[in-house]
Structure formats: C-alpha cells, structure tokens
C-alpha cells in the first residue's frame, strides 16, 4: 500500500487573464516508510505537488489517493478531519502559533484529535524530549532560535503519529549547520516512527538524505530515483 498515489494530476493557476499550468500528467506513488524528496528548480511545481499530496489544495484533473482514500471527493470538513488524522506539516517558516508555548504548540493537534489531557501531556513531553527541547516546553516561539522553532514544528507534525509528514523547504530559513541537524533529526524520527516523509527542497543536503528523489521540471515528473544504501552513501559523499 502506498501512502500517496497520484494519477494523471493536472493543476492550472489563473492569474488575471493569464493561465499558468503548474502540473500536468503527474502520476506517482510514494513508497511507505521512506524519505522522499521532491526536487526541482524554483517554479517547477514542487510546492503545488506537495499541497495536493497534503490535501490542502485540489487538482483540476486526476486522482489523489492518500492513505488509501480518494480525497478529491471529500467535503471541506471531512478533508480537515482527514488531515488532522493522517498528515503532519512542517513549514519553511515554521508557522508556530506565537501565542502558544512550545508545549502548547505540540499539544494543539492532539487537542484537535480530542486526546485526553493526561495522554496529551505524556505524548508532548516525549516529543519535546525526542527533539531535544525537554527544557524549553514553556518557551514561546519568540524565545526560541530558528533551529529550535523548527524542532518544535517537527514535534508538532509528529504529534498525532501520522503516517505521512510533509515538509516544504524545511531548511530554507536555517543556516547550513542547523539545517543539517534538522535533517538528521527528521531522518531519525522518520525511521523511529516508520512514517513517510515527503519534502520539497533543492537543498543538496536534504537530497543526500533521501531514499527517493522525484525530479520535477516544468510541472512534470522528469525522473524518479530510488536509492539503495550504497547509492545513498555515494549521494551523501
């Protein structure tokens, strides 16, 4: 079972009188439990594809199947509930709620999932520990560094233990050292949680860590590279 399957996806943006094709004839399967990177130049359609996979946008044509469910026929409310249960998001600018502490930010998806308070607390403390911020639970985002904020965002994305985590350029706003640490952390957590991580990135560091790399150019799949351990080592070096 593939966590994500796309069949003949097309997406067009209408900017005033101009029609801009963003994706065309895109079909692909994301393998379960792997680290997948959508790679391509700016404007190639990576973010659009990630949005469709994340069920926060709908295609003009084609079929999107996530966790074995065709999502384009779902109502907006059903899709919201579906995202809350099955998908975690990590954003380029972290997008933490500034009025909540790190603890509360991680807790928020669990509140949406209606998890009991005691179980929530246990889960959040585990995640804070997992991302190395056990001592910063009471800090507001404004009191954290960029790397720490992204760690909180990763913990928040993993809070409900989703099988699919999406990240749009997660290292773009971080320095290379912090970015590398974040990628390593995500890689580690991906393995521990056996989740499928899908990134959009043109950061070579991120690509080097990937199990699968999907190359996108001009809104089409230009190639798919599925790596073995050996090829991964070569890519990393």
């Amino acid at each position, binding site marked *: 079972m593939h966590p994500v399957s796309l069949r003949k996806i097309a997406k067009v943006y209408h900017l005033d009188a101009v029609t801009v094709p963003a994706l065309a004839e895109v079909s692909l399967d994301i393998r379960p439990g792997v680290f997948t990177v959508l790679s391509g130049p700016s404007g190639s359609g990576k973010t659009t594809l990630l949005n469709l996979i*994340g069920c*926060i946008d709908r295609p003009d044509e084609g079929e999107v199947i996530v966790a074995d469910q065709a999502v384009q026929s779902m109502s907006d409310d059903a899709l*919201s509930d579906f995202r809350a249960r099955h998908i975690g998001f990590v954003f380029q600018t972290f*997008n933490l709620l500034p009025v*909540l502490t790190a603890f509360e930010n991680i807790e928020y998806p669990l509140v949406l999932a209606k998890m009991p308070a005691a179980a929530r607390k246990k889960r959040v403390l585990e995640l804070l520990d997992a991302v190395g911020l056990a001592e910063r639970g009471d800090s507001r985002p404004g009191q954290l560094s960029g790397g720490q904020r992204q760690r909180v965002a990763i913990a928040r994305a993993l809070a409900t233990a989703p099988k699919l985590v999406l990240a749009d350029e997660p290292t773009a706003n971080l320095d290379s050292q912090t970015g590398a640490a974040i990628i390593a952390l995500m890689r580690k957590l991906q393995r521990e949680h056996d989740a499928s991580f899908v990134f959009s990135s043109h950061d070579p560091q991120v690509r080097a860590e990937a199990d699968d790399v999907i190359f996108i150019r001009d809104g089409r799949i230009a190639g798919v590279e599925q790596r073995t351990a050996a090829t991964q080592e070569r890519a990393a070096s």
Partner: protein
Amino acid sequence: MNTWLLALRNLLRNRRRSLATLLAMVVGLTAILLFGGYRSNILYGMETGFVQQSGHLQVQRRGYFLDGSDNPSAYGMPRYREIIDAIQRDPVLAPMAVVVTPTLQLGGIAGNYSAGASRSVVASGLVANERNHMLQWNDYDMISYAQPLALEGAAEDAVVVGTGVARKLQLCAALEVANCRQTPAADAPVEAAATGSPAPDDVLALSALEKAQQPRGAYNRIEMLAATASGAPNVASLTVVKASNFGIKAIDDIYLAMHLAQAQKLIYGAGRPEATAVIMQLRHTAQMPEARARLTALLASDFAGEPLEVLDFQTLNPMYRQTDEFMASMFGFIALLIGVIVLFTIGNTMGTAVMERTVEIGTLRAMGVRRGGIRRLFMCEALLLGAIGSVVGLTVALMVSWFINHSGWAWTPPGYSYAYLILVRVWQDVPLLVGSVLGMIAVTVASAWWPASRAAKLQIVDALRHA
C-alpha cells in the same frame, strides 16, 4: 488549550489595539447607560408623580376626559359610592388596590374681593386622608417632591391653592408665599379696589352674604363662584389654609383643592352628590393591565346601564406618553449612533487581526481545523472583547452615576416651578442594564461575523502564501 484561552491570548497579543477597541466600547456603553439611567429617572419620576396625583386607573363617565372636564354636572357619576364599594369587595381588585377614592373636578372663579383680585381656577373636590395616602406611593424609591395636602383634619370650608393662585389672589402675606410681591391694594376693601375688574353685581351680593359671616382681618378667605348642576351661579366662601407648590407652574397657577363634600355642595347643592371620577391606585404599575381588564368586566356586569369607561394614568396624562416617546426616540438615536461606531471599531479590529494572521489561519486549517473552528476562534475573540467591554463599561457607568447622584446638581425642567436633582438610575433599572449589555454583545458579534467568515473561507494555500 481551549478556544477561549487561545482567543484571550490573541487579544493580548496586540494590547494597544485591543485597548483602543475596548475604550470605544466602554465609552459607548457608559454613554448609553447614563443616558438610559437619566431617561429612566425622568420617566419613573413622572410616573410616580402622576400615580400619586391621579392614581393608576380612573372610572369616569364616558366622554368626560375628552369633552366634559369643565362640565361636572353633565358628566357626574351618581353611583360612584357603589362603584367604590364594588371595587373594594372584588376578590381580584381589592388586594391590588392601595386607595380607591372619589373626586369631583370643577371649574370656577376664585376671588379675593377684599383685594379686588380674581382668577379662574380648576378645583378638585377630594377625600383628604385618602389623597394623602396616595401621595405615599413610591414603587421605584424615587425622591418624592409631593407634599401632603393640608386639608386633612381641616374645616369643611378649607382649601389649598397653588402658589400661583395665591399670588394672583393677593394672598402672599397671609399664606407666607415666598418670592411673592403683594400689592398694597390687597388690604383695601372691595369697594375701593383700584385694581382688578369689578365683580358682577349678583356675585358681589352673594359674596356680601358670605363675607358678613367671616371675622374681620381674615385675609386668607376667598370666594369661589361655580355653576350648579342646574346652571345657576353659586358661591362658596372658603378659607385658604395653605398655598402649595405643585411643581408645574401651569397647575400652580390654577389649582385649588377642597373637601369633596364642599365641592359637591357647591355643584349639586342639596341634590344627590356625584363624583366625576373614581380613582384607583394600585400597588404596582405592572398590575395595571390585569386590574383594568377586571375593572372593565366588573363595570360591565354590575353597572351595565351606566356609560362608564376606565382610563389609565398614561391616557389621563398625555405628557407622560409624549415624554416617553421623545426620550425613547433620543435614546434610540444615541444607541444607534454608538452602536454603529462600536460596530465599525470592532469590525476594523477583527478585520485587521484576520489580515495579520492570515498565515496562521492557513497553518491551523492545514493542521485540520475546520472552517467553523476558524470562525469560532474569531467570534470567541469578539465575544471576549464584548464581555470585557461590557463589564468595564458597566463598572464605569455605575461609578459615574454614583458621582452624578451625589453631586447635588439640579435643573428646572421646562414648565416646572422648582428645580429637580439630576439623577441617573442605572443600577436600579435592570431592563436597561441587561438590554444595553446584551445589545453591546450583539453588536460585537455582528461586527465580528463578517471578518470571521472571511477568515474561515480563506483558501489554505493562499493563506499560507500570504506575506
């Protein structure tokens, strides 16, 4: 993390903006409550005054109020005593009634012929102790300016006049009326009177008969000329025991109160005494609809042949309804104006908050918050603003009203003859309090609805892209 706590923190995020919005609400609510409290004080004061003077309900002969107020002989009620007895026996009306008393209203000319002064007056024949009991009605704990009539226990020919009447009749010195300039002619005999119109010969003759019986030097005696039931003139010699300020100058200038028996003797002579109205004062104004319905039914069953009608104090005193409507229109206008200001202030605050937090809205939606959840979040923020604004506004209004009520400020309303304290009834007026607070919260909710809906309808990807 519940929605209310999140909403509160979002409000605290931009303290200055939230404070400015709250300030607009507080000022608006305070203004509404103070004006409403002032209006309440005026209306309750008027109601108290009218109920003290004319009761809640009156039984009159049909048409008397509109056409017959100067014609007691044509609109008298010979069975008034039976009507009073029927009310006092009725198991529904009796417990509601504080006072049931007859009155006879008549017009005439009062003259102080020794001073060569006369003027037309409107006189009330009344039962003094019952009318004084009516003056004690004060269901709203108002400051009452009513003074008991000095007729209680006084001689049969005793009368009380308005201070204006006392002035016109040159009785200032005898009645110790303040701020009243008495002309020297007041001491002159009627024959030598240089001022005032000469009285008709027949009146002078009647007056002379009465005058012969009065002790010399009793300068508080007057004569009153009225038409009897048969149309003939009749004169009563009366003793003015007091000049009272009845509050309204127009009344002060014409009013004269006398014992009912004296008034009946003046109009009906030795004939069957009648009354022009039976006054019924209730314990509470809220009982009026029930009492009126019961009284109407009682009259229809027990006095079927009599052309009677029941009138309430609002009909009997059109000024009350007119003032109520005038004040209501002013209150409505002010409330509308303030409501619109608050509406746009909160709408602007919420609109700005939605714009500033667009990315946050997109993030929440991506995480699985439904459109309804986003709408609820912003509505909670507006409701919190409304609740805090209402509590603070209410507190400020109560503090300002306390200050006003203890300031001793006074004013003389148009047409009145003495100054009233400026008071505002905010705390005592529960409908005003509840209505204003609920109104403010309703305006808050209405003003937040559109920005909240706009936030809920944002496309997630557009919201996340928002810079």
